[in-house]
């Protein structure tokens, strides 16, 4: 794992939904090292703890990263105040990302709410071999659908209230896909109940599944042991750390 800390220029910023922002950041050495599923740890001016934000885009040629984040509290509100041309302080790229296997012929990528951004680099990697299912509260919270379509992936949209796409949770279309079979891998990021539901379906069908978790975090690099997550490895219970061992875990390893 190779990571650095530095100040990088924000080359593009726009709001893509209510309180959800997209930043493009010029950081060639970070982009060169970054993999799908990893995150960046951003300093919020005036706050002790950095904020972990998943990577939504990696452009190694241009040397840029894209992040998409939601204002969840004071820290993310502070980060959202940064503008194009400002410097952003990042410790990155961090964590253990998704496994991308070119031998997989069909991958299902499932994102719930602000859990959808980390699915975009995966969709790019799998292109037409990917089916992306994304779920949101309602039509006004929908993000990144055009980005997903441009990767060549098939997209399925769900909303909790039916104001866009399928009326219901992502588990509904996923169950139908799983019934049809032929899925080599499932990748998911979103609220815990969603992840738990997907992991259960994959376990039942014997489908390989990786999930991305979040936890309150301090150092971001595995030193402070703050972001503990109960997992099983080699038949033994083990407190893994979301920042270093994750954020991506094999679903079968997680103790819910």
């Amino acid at each position: 794992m190779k990571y650095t800390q530095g100040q990088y220029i924000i080359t593009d910023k726009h709001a893509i939904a209510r309180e959800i922002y997209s930043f493009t950041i010029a950081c060639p050495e970070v982009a060169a090292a970054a993999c799908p599923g990893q995150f960046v740890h951003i300093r919020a001016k005036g706050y002790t703890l950095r904020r972990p934000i998943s990577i939504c885009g990696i452009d190694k040629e241009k040397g840029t990263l894209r992040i998409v984040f939601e204002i969840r509290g004071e820290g993310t509100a502070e980060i959202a105040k940064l503008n194009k041309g400002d410097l952003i302080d990042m410790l990155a790229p961090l964590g253990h990302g998704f496994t991308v296997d070119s031998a997989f012929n069909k991958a299902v990528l499932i994102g719930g709410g602000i859990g959808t951004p980390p699915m975009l680099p995966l969709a790019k990697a799998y292109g037409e071999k990917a089916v992306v299912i994304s779920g949101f509260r309602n039509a006004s919270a929908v993000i990144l659908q055009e980005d997903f379509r441009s990767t060549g992936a098939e997209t399925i949209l769900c909303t909790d209230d039916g104001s866009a796409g399928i009326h219901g949770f992502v588990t509904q279309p996923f169950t139908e896909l799983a019934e049809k079979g032929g899925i080599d891998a499932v990748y998911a990021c979103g609220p815990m109940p969603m992840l738990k539901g997907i992991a259960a379906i994959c376990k039942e069908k014997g489908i390989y599944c990786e999930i991305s978790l979040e936890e309150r975090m301090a150092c971001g690099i595995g030193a402070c042991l703050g972001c503990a997550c109960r997992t099983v490895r080699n038949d033994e219970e083990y407190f893994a750390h979301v920042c270093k061992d994750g954020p991506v875990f094999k679903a079968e390893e997680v103790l819910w």
Partner: protein
Amino acid sequence: MADLSVKVCGTDFKNPIIPASGVFGYGREYEELFPLDKLGGIATKGTTLHLRTGNLAPRIAETPSGMLNSVGLQNPGIDHFIETELPYLLTKDLVVLANIAGSTPDECAEVAAKLEDTDVHMIELNISCPNVKQGGAAFGTSCEMAAEVTKRVRAVTKKPLVVKLSPNVTSIADIAKSVEAAGADAVSLINTLLGMRIDINTGRPVLRNNVGGMSGPAVFPIAVRMVWQVANAVNIPVIGMGGVSSGRDAIELMMAGASAVQVGAAIFTDPYAPVRIVEEMNDWLDSRGIKSVKEIIGTVKPW
């Protein structure tokens, strides 16, 4: 370039800055960012006799100008430390303080005894962890218990013994005097202050352990006061810590009486904090024409 070297219990530090136990693991994660040789020393993650899994998550909460943690002494156990982590750290040019803890005085002594045959430079005995049910802070909040556990560890080690004190007491100076009398070679302070946050939307404490240790810039004035009180009460060196985030803070803590300074939560905000603090101390000393950092220890002129 000022002389930043200090001597604590006969051990030479090339500079007074030491990452505090718990924030820095065993150093490997930060070595990705800077060579450990830039540090005066390292206080390793609190290590117990056997592996400890620690507390359930969430273990971290933010507070105004600070944070709470309730990690609960998660560590791989002293044997792993001695076999895997210590030999590597000893190849680096810095002082290694092995931070140890236990549920009973016996356990603390057993851990210290295992370190006696190693080349570790100093032992930092943690009698002040607020996040474990047995031992931990319970040892650090009464003069009798603090003295008892110090005595037991003293009996099994000839290494410089630093006892890390809890601020969650009525008189930290009295605790410091007790451990001095029981054979401590130095004291380090302050460990975290017991705190709590509640999520008002759920009515649940933010930390799964309900309460946790508070650190960060918000506690710095308390650290200055306690270091000053303890330095005036004992004749052994004081290693200061608590909310230090700049070279000026480190200088202030040394003026209050600290011979060396540990840096904790500041590393989460700025992972280069310990290295930056060394540079800032040097700049401040140079700007004042002070040749050695030793000249400022305990020089506060109280009213």
